[in-house]
């Protein structure tokens, strides 16, 4: 019966090789969690920053969960995409972070990575864009077998999340 509010925003991303980014995001929870209201996935606009290399989205996240257990605490998975001057989109990074479990305001920095691909693919990417993507994006938040991947670190996505817990103390979860 405990409730969790996640209210915040995806502020933006920085440190990516190119600007003009957008972000697809989603929240993954375990089976014990019920979404009462809010959208659990979405996509931001494409931001082409003029001044610095930080893309600002200020994309709101507002979720209200009810849960019957702690398992599967919500985690946020992100995919940062780049839209080039031709309007084509290519993947720039996968990332995921846990939604903080302590109440209050949190600033999160979610670092991202991207599959590297073979050298041919890298070469192709350099000239014609595109790039390797995960076949099953589940891998973003499930770690099994990920060690087989070669990845490159990409930039960071900055999030600001406000967490409100309710009735967790009733069930012996101190916050």
């Amino acid at each position, binding site marked *: *019966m405990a409730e969790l509010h996640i209210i915040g925003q995806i502020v933006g991303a920085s440190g990516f090789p190119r600007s003009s980014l957008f972000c697809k995001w989603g929240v*993954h929870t375990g089976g*014990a969690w019920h979404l009462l209201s*809010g959208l659990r996935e979405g996509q931001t606009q494409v931001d082409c920053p003029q001044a610095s290399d930080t893309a600002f989205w200020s994309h709101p996240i507002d979720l209200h969960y009810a849960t*019957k257990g702690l398992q599967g605490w919500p985690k946020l998975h992100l995919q940062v995409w780049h839209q080039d001057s031709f309007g084509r*989109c290519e993947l720039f990074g996968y990332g995921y972070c846990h939604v903080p479990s302590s109440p209050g305001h949190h600033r999160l920095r979610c670092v991202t990575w991207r599959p590297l691909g073979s050298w041919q693919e890298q070469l192709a990417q350099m000239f014609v864009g595109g*790039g390797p993507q*995960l076949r099953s994006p589940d891998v973003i938040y499930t770690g099994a077998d990920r060690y087989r991947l070669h990845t490159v670190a990409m930039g960071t996505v900055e999030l600001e999340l406000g967490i409100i817990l309710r009735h967790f103390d009733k069930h012996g979860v101190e916050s």
Partner: protein
Amino acid sequence: MASSDLREKMRKKRRALQETLGRVREDADTQVLVATDWEMSKDGERTAVQEPSGSEEQQVATLKQTLKAQRMKRRKKLVEDTPAETPPEAATGASEVERGPRAGESRTPVAAASSSRRSPRDLPPLPASSTLTLSEGPMKRRMVEKLKAARSKAESLLQQEALAEPASRLQGLRDRDPLTRFDTEADLGVRRRDDGAAPLVGRVTFREVAHRGWRRAEVDSGLPTAEEAYNFFTFNFDPEPLEEAAEQKKERRFVEDRGVEEEEEEGGGGGEEEAQVEDGGEGESGSEEEDKEEDAEGRSEGAPLVEDQQGELFIDETAQDFLEVKKAEYLGYHSRVQRESEVLFTPSLRTVPTSCKVPENMQPRYLEEEGLYVGERPPVSLANQNILENRILQQDEAKKWFGDDGRVLALTDPIKQSSTRPPLFNLEEDLDPALQTVYRKALKTRHASRYVAGLGETAGRCQLDVDVSGLIFSHHPLFSREHVLGVRLVQLYDQHLNRQHRNITGLLTDKLHGLRNAVRNITDLHGDRGLNVVMRQRIAEYRLEVRNTRRLRDVEQEKDRTLLKSTLKVWKEMKALREFQRFTNTAYKLHLRKQEVNQSRDEQDFEEEIQMELVELQGELEEEYQRKISQYRQQLEEWKAWRKKQKVSSKKKKKKKKKKEPNEGDKDDEDEDEQEEKDLGSEPPKPEPPERQELSLLEQQVREKAARIRRKPGEPILVPEVTLSGNITPNEQCPRGEFARREDVARRSLFVKVLYNDKEVSRTDRRPLGADFRVHFGQIFNLKIANWPESVRLQVFEASGSSSALLAEVFVPLPESTVLTGSAPPQELEFSSSQRVTFNHEGVGSDVPFSFEADGSNKLTLLTSGKLSCCVSWAVGENDIPLAPPTSQTPGGIHGALRQTDAIACIGASGLSDMKRLSKWAAESRLDPNDPSNVVLMQLLTVASSGEVQVPDYFRLEQLQEEFNFVTDEELQKSRRFRLLTLRSQEVVEFRNYKNVPAVEREVSEKVFQDYEKRLRDGEVVDTKEHLDPHRAVVAKYLKKIRESVMNRFLIAKHHFLLSDLVQEDEVPSIGVLGLNIFKLAEPKRPLKPRRKERKKVTAQNLADGNIKLLVNIIRAYDIPVRKPHPSKPAVASKSARSFTEAFVAAQSSQSALHGNDWPLNQVQVRPFVEVTFQRSVRQTTTADGPNPCWNEELELPFSAPNGDYSTSSLQSVKDEVFINIFDEMTFDITEDDRERGSTVHTRIEKHWLGSVKIPFSTIYLQSRIDGTFKVQSPPVLLGYSKERSLAGEGGYDSVLSLSEGSFVTLFITIQPQLIPGESVREKMKEMKFDSQEDERLLHAAEAFQRDAALRFPGRPCLTTVIDISGKAVFITRYVRPLSPPQELLDAFPNSPQEATELVARYVSLIPSLPDSVSFTSICDLWSTSDQFLALLAGDEEEHAVLLCCYFLAMGKKAWLIIGTAIPEGPTAYVLTYEQGRYLIWDPGRGQYYGQYDTFCPLQSVGCLINADNVWFNTQVYDAPMRMGFDVSRSKLWKPFFSRAFPNPGLSSVQPEELVYRRVDKVAAAELQDRIEKVLKEKIMEWRPRHPTRWNRYCTSTLRHFLPKLEQSRGRDVGDEHRLELQSMLGDYRISGFPLNVPFSELQPIVEAVYSTGVHNVEVSNVEFALAVYVHPYASNVLSVWVYLASLVRTR
């Protein structure tokens, strides 16, 4: 001699010395150079040098000092440099030398040092004793020379250096120096120190040292080393000798003298060597002089100190006082160790005995030995462990660190043994498919309707392989009779083979035998007595099983038998047929193979079987009997008990009634109680004893059955075999019919189209239909898939010649994503077609009855059918990657699997589901069964390996979730608050605008959900109360359902946003626009003709209650009915109705003549005002005068959206209407007292309704403004008013005006602020492609046509395809088809076609209108066919128009559908007819018609005309009906869709062939009439809460009689007569009233209409009301409702 010898020697020595000196000098030079270099670099470290003398702030102040100190140091360096070459011991000595002069330390070390300071290169010191006496003079001289040279050289060097120093800076600094505070301070400090006279001593000492150097040099070798010499001379502690030299000349002289004295004094103390030097060195004097000068300089500093004259000078020295250089402190290693050992504890390396570690008197306990799981510890070296243990043991509570086994407690090793990332050599190959990355090109997003959840990523990567291998007809129209039989034979044979293959009968027989044996064994083994309960139980079970098996076997046997029989029968028929027709068509042949059997054995078996069965049956029956008997006994007992009770009670009642029951039971069981049975109401039936079944009967039954279903004993076993070995009669020998058939067959060919998601993707080649009706295609189609697969269809086409026809459609089930090409089994899909085909040759046709019998009995009707064998599977790409779309895999699956990462790493994720591999892995890896991390796995394995426990079918995701749940699911579900929140977020209608949800559970009341639950519950139940008519209720439900389904269909489109939906952006003015604006500036200004400007649009989301206003601008009205003079005067005269009528008619006619004269003069014609009612708020204009008033007023009405929801969809579905009512304001003088007339005015104002205009809000919203002149809907009869047409005078305009009847009002209505209408959705719908069954080519043409039209005439509506009610695009002409109207309408006016036409139009207009935008919120225009329209009894203009057009066509008129715009509806559909040389425009919604040149025709523009054959687009310059021609044959004016280039393919109509009308239901109408009347009366009373409402019954009944007449005449031409009638009856009353006519849909609109007339507002005390309702039924439940409403005021 000796002296000469000595001299010789000396010379030699001198020479040697000279050499060395020269060498040394060079050496020194280089050293100096080196030193300076070093010094320069040292400059950088000035601060470090300064530090002792001052802090950094004083840096500047002390700079001078520092420089001096440096200079000094530099000189010192020369000293130091030399020792640098000496061993380190000497270095200490050297430092002491430096220090010596300052600290005044002992001199002895100096001597020692100086001796030891000699560089290795130096000559070894000569023995002093041998040389001293003899050769002092020349040697000395030489030495002095050398020294001089050395010194001069050094000096010059120094000077150079001094010059090299930045003099100016020095100068500046020096000038400033005295001013600084530090200086004075330093001076003070210096002075203080000087008191101790140490520096002086130092100075003196230095000199002494110098002297001693000399002395020693002489003592030691007679020669000073070059270094010493140099040092001596250059070691100057005075940094500023040159500057002060001049000043101190005089002093120096004096000091010199003194210095000499002192020198001498001290020198005297020194010893004789000095004296020798003095004495023997006359030549030296020069050098001595210099030497002295040096000394003097040194002393000149010392001297003033003594004399305390010049403070500055001391600074030079004092720098040394701040610094103290100390030796590095050092403590010996051993002592340190010793000291430390007192403090520190060093644990030993030795192993601690176990006894120390476990508690006393305990043996260590090893858990491993006891079989408990102990994890592996992390490896720690033994030494470290020992150290740790030793250390811990020293601690308090040391024992608690040790476990029972005497080892330090430790967790198991958390580090994996194997590396998590095993080396991957070939990355590409063994990568888990889940992890593979795909190189994806940077692609533009294709945002068509590709909203496919989950697919997005892999779109285009899927491939579906459709393998169409072939098809076999099981019936085809071209089958001959023989074929029919042949197919049947084959089918039966197949069935037979199938059964044989499965051999169920055999299996069951075997089972039966087995079971019987088992029973027999048990009984044999144990006999009868030894049976315990368990055994008995088992036997019973066996018996039951035997019984079941036997029954099953019998059934199967019977089937076998019948199959065989029917096979034979068919074969016989076939043979007969072949014989009869004398040719053979098929190659089928049936052979029967006989298997002989042993007769006697067979018989024995048969008999045995029967006996066996008999025995069993007997046993069963016996059992049954026993059971029944016991049941019977029990019942009997109960019955008896009941009867006893009954008897007791009946005795108490004195045995009221007694009656003997006939004795019917068994005598033995019944006893005398039976006699007293009573017949009472609740008596349980007396049980009957069961009967035993006859044994003989049983046997007979068994035998009969056996004969029926089993092979008779001795009969051979027949095995049928169908072969294709028969001969087919060649064509030439066939009769003509058959020949024709075969010809036909040969002509036919078949092909299969593959449709994916209803789009044809490919088709097979044509294959001829073989004589055996099998077609082999064997083609595989690879479909690359971008869209989510919805359906795969195969269409079988049959082609003969060039034409082809669709034979059948087969839907192929979509394969699971695991079904891959290669492994997928081919499927046989049956298809059939209901097409009727007949032939005149031998082919039997399809859907045609035929018979095999000669007499034609036993007819068969076969439909074309067959089997298509195909296979649809997902392709396998390279590297065996399935190209299937991802299954919606729950991520939890991976989650759960994660627990066994090891296992996954070992055997892969897929192996987890494979139990064998898993257990194998477990065995191989020797899992520790006690390891807690393996619990899950072990459990799984035990479950799997032991067969007893079933592996659960379900898969639990989070296994441990249950244990950690806070609450159960039910509780979570129960939470009202959560439910409310969820419902709100789901936008369920009831909760969509629920603003605040309580934070606490208990604050959410249960009532909140009542409505919602009720709605859910009532979803199916039709509520007849709300709707007066049950049929309407059903329709309403149906409408709702359609709406929901349509909503779902378009949900995707709603989520598809265009940029303009999200970004509101003002257009950047282009050059053209700017230019136009400039021209506008030049335009003449017309301030008196203001124009309306475009306002800024507001999106709906920023709105709130009260923000929106409806602006209604009432401009003017024409032709308002005028008052009739109150007939009070003639009424007096009237006595009889008859005469009155006549008189009145006469009077009226004369009256109209009179009007011109006296009316305008003496009486107000009418004083109209307009009242606007919207959402129950009312605004009115001022009152104007006359029948053509001009108000020009703006009224503001507030608007509130339903539920406060201002979203576009919600606004569009607002059903409210704006009522614009025109009233006449009447004033009555009610001043009762004539005397007051002069002073008071006492009047009563009454308003009389004259007419109204209704405009739905949705229209206003969608069009954003409504501007125009509207016809006022006025009642056919207005009591007390008349139309005065000719009154307005004469003139051209008037004549036009007079063509139209009724009044008109000019309005402008808009919404403030301007809302963006939901057109965006409509626009989007245009972009969206609908499913369509139309031909692709047609659709393309339609699109092109529309695009072209929009390009040439933007804004002119052009429709080619419309969306039908199931959401499919349909070509528009399919809607037009002649449909006959209800017969009674045609019969009504048999000889007047005009009348009939109008009646038909009226009928159509009586079907209630419901805009699509209201019913299908913001989705699109849906066109329903006419039968749907009549069933729904609701539709918008298009449906009305279509129906009317169809009726007109059926009535033989030339009719078209007009697509155009009208006011106030906006885009709409009208009907155009061509009659008697002129065009009439029909408004289908109102049932009125207008001529082409009618001014007040609401149709504003015409976009296109449509009839059943074609669509014409208006290509004329003007689109107003008045200014255009309607002759569609003129290609200049109209552009046809179907032309010669693209002829009409003969589109069939979507309309039904004929409409079926329901009968007129008069009873229901009457009932409805009563109900409406009742409701209205109640409502009127409700609206007049403060006044009594009286009903005038007499008037009501009169009105009621009158209403049917109105309906008959359709509300025309009865006014006067009726009025007179009324007038005559109610002469004493002033009546105002009118009949209203509305089509019936629901009650609410009627109530609303009545309310808007405001009749109830009359507040005169003596007012009476009359209300009559008449419902006229038409066919198909179309009802015309008339409400006659009148208010009566008694005039006297």
